[in-house]
C-alpha cells in the first residue's frame, strides 16, 4: 500500500487545498494518471500519481487544506499490504458537507456519462435541476439523468457541474497578489541564500537564423520554429555536458537532476512568472521542443499545468524575447543551482575575418550558485551553448 502525499508544487508551497478528486476508490491508476486538482497560491494545478495500482482509500476530502507531504490517498500497488476489498466504499455526503464550509457544494463524482436523448429528443430535466443548472451556468447536454424516466435531477446537475466547471473556474483564478507574494518569497530567498556569480557571452546567430529561415520555409505555418527553440535546445545539450549546473541544492548538498528538465520561464498577463519544465529537453527534437513550448505557454496561461511540470525543472532558462532588454542577469530559482538567460536578438557590428559586419547576436548569461560551481564551469556552459548554436543542423 502506498501513501500518496500532497506534492510540493513550488519552492514556497507549504500547503494546498484539495479541490477536486478525479478518481474513486477502486479506480485503477498508472504512472502519470492525473488524480486530483489542488489549489495553490499560484492557482489550480492537476496532480499526478507516479505509481501503478488501485485507489484504495481517499483520506483527504474535497475542500480540505493540508500541508505539503500530507497523505491524500492510499493506493494498493499489489505490495505486502492486505488487498483492498472489491466493493466500492461509500463516498457519502460527508464529503459534500465538508465542502459547504468553503461555500462550494460538491457531490461524489461519476465517470463521464453517455449522451442522453440518443433519439434526438430533449432530455427531461426536473424543475429544480434546471434552475440549479442555470444558476451554475452548466450545460445539460451529455448529462445522464438518474431521475424518474431518465430525467436529469438535482443530484445529476450538482455532480456534473462540479466535475465540469471546476477546471475553468480555477483557470480564471490566478491570484495576482498571491503570485506576487510567491515570487517575492522565492526571489528574496534566492538572493538571501544563494551566492550568485554572473557570466555572459555574446553569441553570433547568423548561421543559426539562416538555417532557421530555410527550415521554416519547408514547414507548415503551425510547425514553424522560433529562435527560442534553438536557444532552448542548445542550452539543454550544453547543460548535459556540465551536470554540476543541472540539479538542486537541498539539505546542504547538491543533488544532480535525473535528466535535463529545462524550466522555461513564462511571464503571465497581468503580472506573474511561472517556469514549467520541459522534461528531457536534451533528448527532444526541435519540433518537439517547439510543440512543448507552445503547449506549456498556453497551459501556463490557462492554468492547466501539472505538478510534474512545476516541481521538476533542473535548471531554468529565461529568454527575454524580442521585446526584452539586451541582457538579463537572472536570479536563480531555488532550489536550482543555475539559471541561463538570453536577451533580445539584436543586430550589431561583428568582426568577421578582420572585417566588421552587421550580424544578429544575442547576449547569453549564466547566473550560478557559487556553492556548487564556479566561473570555470559556468564559462564552459556558455562556450558550449555558443558552439552548439554555430551548428544548427546538429540541434
Amino acid at each position, binding site marked *: 500500500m502506498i501513501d500518496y502525499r500532497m506534492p510540493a508544487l513550488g519552492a514556497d508551497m507549504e500547503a494546498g487545498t484539495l479541490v477536486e478528486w478525479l478518481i474513486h476508490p477502486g479506480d485503477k491508476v498508472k504512472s502519470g494518471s492525473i488524480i486530483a486538482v489542488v489549489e495553490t497560491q499560484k492557482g489550480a494545478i492537476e496532480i499526478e500519481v507516479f505509481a501503478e495500482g488501485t485507489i484504495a482509500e481517499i483520506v483527504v476530502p474535497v475542500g480540505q487544506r493540508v500541508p505539503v507531504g500530507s497523505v491524500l490517498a492510499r493506493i494498493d500497488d499489489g505490495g505486502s499490504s492486505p488487498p483492498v476489498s472489491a466493493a466500492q466504499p461509500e463516498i457519502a455526503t460527508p464529503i459534500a458537507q465538508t465542502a459547504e464550509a468553503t461555500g462550494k457544494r460538491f457531490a461524489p463524482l461519476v465517470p463521464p456519462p453517455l449522451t442522453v436523448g440518443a433519439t434526438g429528443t430533449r432530455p427531461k430535466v426536473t*424543475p*429544480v*435541476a434546471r434552475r440549479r443548472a442555470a444558476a451554475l451556468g452548466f450545460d445539460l447536454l451529455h448529462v445522464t439523468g438518474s*431521475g*424518474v*424516466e431518465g430525467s436529469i*435531477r438535482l443530484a445529476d446537475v450538482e455532480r456534473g457541474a462540479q466535475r465540469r466547471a471546476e477546471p475553468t473556474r480555477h483557470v480564471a483564478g490566478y491570484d495576482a497578489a498571491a503570485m506576487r507574494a510567491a515570487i517575492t518569497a522565492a526571489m528574496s530567498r534566492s538572493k538571501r541564500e544563494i551566492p550568485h556569480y554572473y557570466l555572459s557571452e555574446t553569441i553570433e546567430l547568423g548561421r543559426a537564423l539562416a538555417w532557421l529561415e530555410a527550415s521554416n520555409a519547408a514547414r507548415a505555418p503551425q510547425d514553424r520554429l522560433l529562435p527560442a527553440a534553438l536557444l532552448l535546445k542548445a542550452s539543454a545539450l550544453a547543460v548535459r555536458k556540465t551536470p554540476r549546473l543541472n540539479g538542486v541544492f537541498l539539505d546542504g548538498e547538491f543533488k544532480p537532476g535525473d535528466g535535463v528538465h529545462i524550466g522555461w520561464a513564462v511571464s503571465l498577463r497581468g503580472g506573474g512568472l511561472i517556469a514549467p519544465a520541459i522534461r528531457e529537453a536534451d533528448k527532444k527534437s526541435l519540433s518537439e521542443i517547439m510543440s512543448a513550448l507552445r503547449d506549456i505557454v498556453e497551459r501556463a496561461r490557462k492554468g492547466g499545468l501539472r505538478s510534474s511540470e512545476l516541481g521538476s525543472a533542473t535548471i531554468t532558462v529565461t529568454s527575454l524575447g524580442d521585446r526584452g532588454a539586451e541582457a538579463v542577469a537572472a536570479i536563480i530559482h531555488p532550489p536550482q543551482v543555475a539559471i541561463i538567460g538570453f536577451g533580445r536578438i539584436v543586430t550589431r557590428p561583428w568582426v568577421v575575418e578582420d572585417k566588421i559586419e552587421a550580424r544578429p547576436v544575442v547576449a547569453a548569461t549564466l547566473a550560478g550558485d557559487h556553492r556548487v560551481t564556479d566561473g570555470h564551469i559556468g564559462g564552459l556552459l556558455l562556450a558550449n551553448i555558443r558552439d552548439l548554436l554555430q551548428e544548427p543542423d546538429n540541434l
Partner: protein
Amino acid sequence: MSDAAASSFLRLTYREACKQALRQALIEDPRVFLMGEDIGRYGGCYAVTKGMLEEFGEARIRDTPLAESAIVGAGIGAAIVGMRPIVEVMTCNFSLLALDQIVNNAATIPHMSGGQFAVPLVIRMATGGGRRVAAQHSHSLEGWFAHIPGLRILTPATIEDARFMLLGALRDPNPVLIFEHVMLYNVEENLDPGVCAVDIDHAKIRRAGRDVSLIAYGGGLPKALAAASLLNKEGIEAEVLDLRVLRPLDTAAILETVSRTRRCVIVDEGWRSGSISAEIGMRIAEGAFFELDAPLRRVCGREVPMPYAAHLEDACLPQPEGIAAAARELVAPS
C-alpha cells in the same frame, strides 16, 4: 373544561373519542342538540351515540325518520336561528339525498343574504370503503364536498382529532362537515392528557422525513404511515403530512413539505379523476413547481363502483405497498 366533560380514559377508540366529543358539546352548550337516523334508541349505526339518549333526553338526541333532506334542512334552519345542531347523516352515501340542502342552502345562505345570516351547522358523516359493503355504501365523497365554497371539510384521522375537532367545528360560524372513516372507528390510541383542543385549520406532519412527502388524510393516513415504515427499511425516509382539513386546504403546509423533500405522493381514497388529489397536485404545480425534483404522483381509488368481493375491494383502494412503490419510484427510479 368541566370535570364531567373531561375524558376519564387516556386510551380510547376513535369511536369513543367521537362520543366523548359529542358529550362534551352537549354538556357545555345548551344550544347543541343532535339529529340523525337511529342515533337515539338504536345507539347509532356505528355505536357512536350509544347511551346518549338516556343521558341527554329526547329533546336533544332526536331520532329522525329517514328523510336526509328534511333533517339537514332543518339543521340549517335551526342553526340560522341560534341553535347549534349537530346533524348525523348516517354515511356520506346518504348525503346525496341532502345535497340540495347542503349546497344550495347551507353553503350559500351567508353569501346570498349579504352576510345577514351565518349557518353554524355541523354535519357528521361516516365515509370510506373497506368493509365489503359494496358500491352504494362505500363512497369517499369528502373531496367532492371540498369543492363547495362556504363549507369547511374536516377529516379527523387520529384519536386526538376525533376527540377535539368537533368542538372546533362548533365554534366555527360556518357549516362544517366532519368525515369519520369507517375503518378508523375501532382504532385505539393514547390521548395526550395535556391536549384539550385542536385547530381545524392546519395540516400536521405525522412523520418527519427527507426524501419524499406522502400527503394523506382520513383513512389514508394509517396507510401512508405504514408505507413510510416499509420505505424506512430501504433507507428511504418518507415524510407524512396529515391534511386534516380538505377545505380550506392548508396549502402552505403542502408546499412547505414538498419544497423540502422535492418529491410527493398524494394518497386519496376517492376516485382518481377530479379528486381532491388533483387539486392538491395542481396547487403544488402552481406554488412549488421549481422546487420539484420528480414528477408528482398519486395513489387513488380505482375508478370502479366499489365491488363486494374482498380481494376486489382491496385492489380498488390505496394500500401501503402501492404507496411505498410510488414513493420508491420517485426516490430511486429503477
